[in-house]
């Protein structure tokens, strides 16, 4: 997350309002979260589905990856709910 500007000006030199700063921070945070999530999913699904890399991505590898991404998103939801619906 090294793209935060330290100077409160936009590209054309006008001062940014607090609202602008808040919007920029929200956007950059959302992008950072998304990129981190993607990186994790790539790692997990490569491990599970590409066991013997060959000269192209096979049909079963592709469907495995699809299912893996769906399952990982589902797992994230299950963990989130488990943490916030305490026993």
């Amino acid at each position, binding site marked *: 997350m090294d793209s935060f500007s330290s100077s*409160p000006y936009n590209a054309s030199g006008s*001062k940014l*309002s*607090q609202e602008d*700063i*808040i919007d920029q*921070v*929200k956007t950059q*945070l959302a992008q950072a*979260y998304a990129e*981190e*999530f993607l990186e*994790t999913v790539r790692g*997990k*699904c490569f491990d*599970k*589905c590409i066991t013997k890399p060959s000269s192209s991505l096979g049909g079963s590898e592709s469907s*495995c990856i699809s*299912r*893996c991404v*769906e*399952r*990982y998103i*589902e*797992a*994230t939801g*299950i*963990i*989130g*709910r*488990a*943490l916030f619906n305490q*026993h």
Partner: protein
Amino acid sequence: MDSSALNSTELQNFLNEEKQKAMVNEMIGKLTSVCWDKCITGTPGSKFSSSETSCLTHCAQRYMDMSLLIMKRLQQ
């Protein structure tokens, strides 16, 4: 509005709130990664089995129990 808006309480509150959200997100991310490795042992299917679902839930809950226990131990 001038650049002193950067020091306002509203901005501070927003940043604190986002910091909390980031910590929560990180916890969920880490736990999902750890619990996925523990619980999803085979090739991913078109849905989770009930044992996989329970495992994931239990994993998160036991991790939090453990975390609490560790803190108690360290305070003794």
